């Protein structure tokens, strides 16, 4: 079982031809399209046509190979897909080889051109497609056996473990023996799926294929790619966003200095198309090249408005927009500072709140936060003018890489362009961007040799596309008996989609208001507004993005209402919920955390619930050792309903990981700016929790349906641990101290040393 390291993999051209020829010797090949449902679809609405992005090969040698175009960044979805496939193909899970496929623009592309790995989407959007394809392949193999047996009665045949048996004469055929004959048959329009009651794999914790490679150093991440005659490039950006090269510096002896610019598709805010915002120093190895880059004396032009590009100004701008913003109007320019009504009616909400016996009014703020993937951004390119361009990248968006190559190298034919997706040392949304790829391509076009471009950690922190800052102003009214009778919520935040040139409709940026609309609570009259903050610091997708911002504000505010109503935080939420799924998740986390029994002396609990990517999740955070300078996060309990769990052990790992991501951000995460230059340049100023700071974690999945229903949405897992952590922590802290933390992070001045 193996995800081959990229250098050992046959080229996509070879694989795809073999796949599609479907000759008698190559066995059965099925090409099928796995759809994507993701936020990046909003950016790339182009239809994918007849291309496919996953395919299955059953070889005459009994091999079963599933080629997947999405990215493996730790979420385990490759193995999850294989698990689903093996169920309905009725084969041993351990026999499925999962291969990382890359896209090509050539029409024969088996992997297709539409590949993004975002939105906790791989399993939830591919589950039924994968099952249908596997069941279809299985029935083609059975049909081949039926022809060989001369028996057209399907019920005379059984399938188990990749072997078709003909009951009347006790004959058996392996899939390998049937594959060639099956390849000449048509795929049935519909094939019966394995009934839920007979699941061997779906819903079971199965080991991941990639893990053995990750304990012995053999897994190849982007930064590990090595090519013959390769040179090394190290990037050095203008310190300030919007800064540009004033004068090309002289190259140190034996090195090259190559200015790189912002190309179309990678421009974000201040980083405008055509800006020469970086230089790449090229040399014989990483270290020597990096030292030359460090000491290189480069003169940069500051952006015209540099003096106003600072954190205090951004906050002041947000505070002004909390009071006064220009409403969206169809046909108007609707520039930064526009007020969008996501749902509800301002007049009705205001009058409901005005009539309330008690009003709670609170303002929450969240900073820009870096991604800080453990693997810094990097990309390797082998470009030979007029001949080929091969790209190896730890990318969440092979499709965007492919489009970028085609744009920058228009002379190449589609068949001359290949993208290899490597393992990702974390993605977190940052590696859905392709700015770093564009730099490697630009350098490769100059140096005429294979080149690996890397960003030193300091560049990775200071030229990120950050989780947006936000200021949220919330108000709500309570009756004398503690019932909510009006809710008003305004989030002021820079728009991720607007920075990508996506026109915003009357509701604004779906990434910005995610998690603040369609709230499950019986609030009476509600209003949700979103205002585009004018800051042009680059922002981007970040594990759970908008849900991480809004769930903090919504669930902190709900907790404040519970306090104002004099009610228990859990019971208050429960009294406002109506959907049985939400109630079940809330009850599950309460049970798991022991909410109804008193916490140990000196321990305090907080609760929060929310939704993202079709899953409902709740967390209870328990803290202890609370002093004026800090506290210990002792335990986090997590309950989730994702409708259907393919691999519970892997979901537990993802929820734990998401929770830690949320915890790092809530405690320490922030990026600040002076003259447009990011101030936290390494982990020393952007602390993350160490092993000794890890809370105890308990996870429970709210039981699956007894019979899965394809009309119901399956939920994601990868990002779900994040959103409820911060509010549950703030709510616990309030119980301990009666201080309400409304501005994240908890410890803005934390540092970290060896």
């Amino acid at each position, binding site marked *: 079982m193996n995800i081959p390291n990229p250098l050992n993999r046959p080229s996509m051209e070879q694989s795809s031809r073999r796949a599609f020829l479907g000759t008698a010797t190559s066995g059965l090949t099925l090409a099928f399209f796995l759809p994507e449902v993701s936020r990046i679809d909003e950016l790339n609405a182009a239809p994918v046509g007849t291309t496919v992005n996953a395919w299955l090969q059953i070889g005459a040698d009994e091999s079963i190979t599933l080629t997947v175009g999405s990215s493996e960044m730790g979420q385990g979805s490759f193995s999850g897909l294989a698990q689903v496939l093996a169920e309905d193909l009725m084969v041993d899970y351990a026999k499925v080889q999962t291969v990382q496929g890359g896209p090509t623009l050539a029409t024969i592309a088996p992997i297709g051109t539409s590949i993004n790995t975002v939105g906790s989407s791989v399993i939830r959007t591919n589950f039924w497609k994968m099952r249908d394809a596997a069941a279809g392949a299985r029935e083609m193999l059975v049909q081949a056996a039926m022809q060989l047996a001369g028996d057209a009665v399907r019920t005379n045949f059984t399938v188990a473990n990749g072997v078709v048996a003909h009951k009347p004469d006790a004959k058996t055929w392996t899939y390998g023996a049937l594959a060639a004959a099956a390849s000449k048959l048509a795929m049935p329009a519909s094939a019966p799926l394995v009934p839920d009651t007979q699941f061997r794999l779906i819903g079971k914790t199965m080991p991941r294929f990639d893990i053995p490679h990750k*304990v012995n150093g053999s897994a190849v991440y982007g930064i590990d790619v090595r090519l013959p005659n390769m040179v090394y490039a190290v990037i050095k950006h203008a310190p300030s966003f919007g800064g540009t090269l004033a004068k090309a510096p002289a190259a140190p002896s034996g090195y090259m200095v190559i200015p790189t610019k912002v190309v179309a598709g990678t421009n974000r805010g201040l980083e405008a198309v055509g800006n020469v915002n970086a230089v790449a120093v090229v040399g014989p190895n990483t270290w020597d090249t990096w030292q030359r880059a460090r000491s290189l004396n480069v003169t940069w032009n500051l952006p015209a408005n540099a003096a106003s590009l600072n954190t205090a100004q951004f906050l002041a701008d947000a505070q002004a927009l909390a009071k006064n913003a220009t409403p969206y109007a169809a046909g108007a320019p609707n520039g930064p500072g526009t007020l969008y009504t996501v749902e509800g009616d301002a007049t009705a909400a205001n009058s409901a709140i005005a009539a309330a016996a008690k009003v709670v009014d609170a303002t929450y703020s969240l900073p820009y936060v870096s991604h800080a*993937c*453990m693997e810094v951004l990097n990309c390797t390119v082998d470009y030979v003018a007029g001949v080929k361009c091969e790209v190896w990248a730890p990318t969440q968006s092979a499709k965007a890489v492919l489009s970028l190559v085609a744009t920058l190298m228009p002379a190449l034919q589609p068949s001359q362009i290949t993208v290899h997706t490597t393992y990702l040392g974390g993605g977190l949304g940052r590696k859905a961007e392709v700015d770093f790829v564009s730099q490697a391509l630009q350098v490769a076009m100059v140096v005429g040799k294979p080149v690996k471009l890397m960003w030193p950690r300091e560049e990775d922190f200071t030229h990120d596309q950050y989780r947006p800052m936000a200021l949220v102003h919330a108000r709500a009214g309570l009756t004398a008996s503690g019932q909510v009778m009006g809710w008003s919520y305004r989030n002021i935040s820079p728009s991720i989609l607007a920075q990508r040139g996506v026109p915003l409709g009357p509701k604004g940026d779906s990434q910005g208001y995610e998690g603040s609309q369609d709230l499950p609570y019986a609030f009476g009259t509600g209003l949700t507004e979103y205002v585009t903050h004018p800051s042009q610091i680059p922002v981007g997708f970040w594990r759970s993005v908008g849900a991480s911002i809004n769930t903090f504000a919504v669930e902190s505010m709900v907790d404040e209402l519970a306090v104002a109503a004099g009610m228990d935080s859990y019971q208050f939420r429960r009294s406002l919920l109506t959907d049985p799924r939400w109630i079940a998740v809330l009850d599950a986390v309460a049970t798991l955390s022991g909410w109804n029994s008193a916490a140990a002396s000196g321990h305090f609990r907080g609760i929060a619930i929310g939704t993202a990517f079709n899953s409902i999740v709740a967390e209870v955070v328990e803290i202890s050792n609370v002093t004026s300078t800090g506290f210990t996060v002792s335990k986090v309990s997590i309950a989730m309903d994702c409708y259907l769990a393919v691999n519970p*052990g892997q979901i537990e790992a993802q929820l734990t990981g998401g929770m830690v991501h949320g915890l790092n951000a809530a405690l320490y995460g922030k990026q600040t700016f002076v003259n447009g230059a990011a101030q936290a340049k390494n982990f020393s100023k952007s602390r993350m929790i160490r092993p*000794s700071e890890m809370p105890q974690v308990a996870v429970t999945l709210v039981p699956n349906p007894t019979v899965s229903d394809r009309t119901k949405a399956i939920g994601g897992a990868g990002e779900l641990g994040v959103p409820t952590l911060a509010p549950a922590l703030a709510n616990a802290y309030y119980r301990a101290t009666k201080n309400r933390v409304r501005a994240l992070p908890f410890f803005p001045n934390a540092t970290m040393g060896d």
Partner: protein
Amino acid sequence: MTLTLNVNGKPSTVTVSDGSMPLLWVLRDLLGLTGTKYGCGIEICGACTVLVDGQPEKSCDMDVSSAVGRRIVTIEGLSANSSHPAQVAWIANQVPQCGYCQSGMLMSVAGAMQAGHHGASIMGEVNNLCVCGTYPRIKAACSKL
């Protein structure tokens, strides 16, 4: 300058521009041992941890010249076939997620074991960063070592 290092039990000769190149980059770029990872470059994260004379050391800030004459073990040399008890425990407990930090994590654990730690006391010696939050499974894996 040409230096001879003892890496994973074998002599390895490298040519560097000067002896201040960190061991990390010698391993990765000059010897092709890419299992040892660059994370922060300032000895905070531990992704670059290797064993030097049996002690866990952060190779990102160790001059290669100071590694001459010492026994260097990288993740590639921890065992011939992923059979080190920590590697076995890592697979059994399905520890890695993205996996990028795990080479350094395993070398820290292996160093603690060599120093005589076992079970829960290993965790007291391991301070590496994992942004994926695999700590509970690391703890579970170490508890039986």
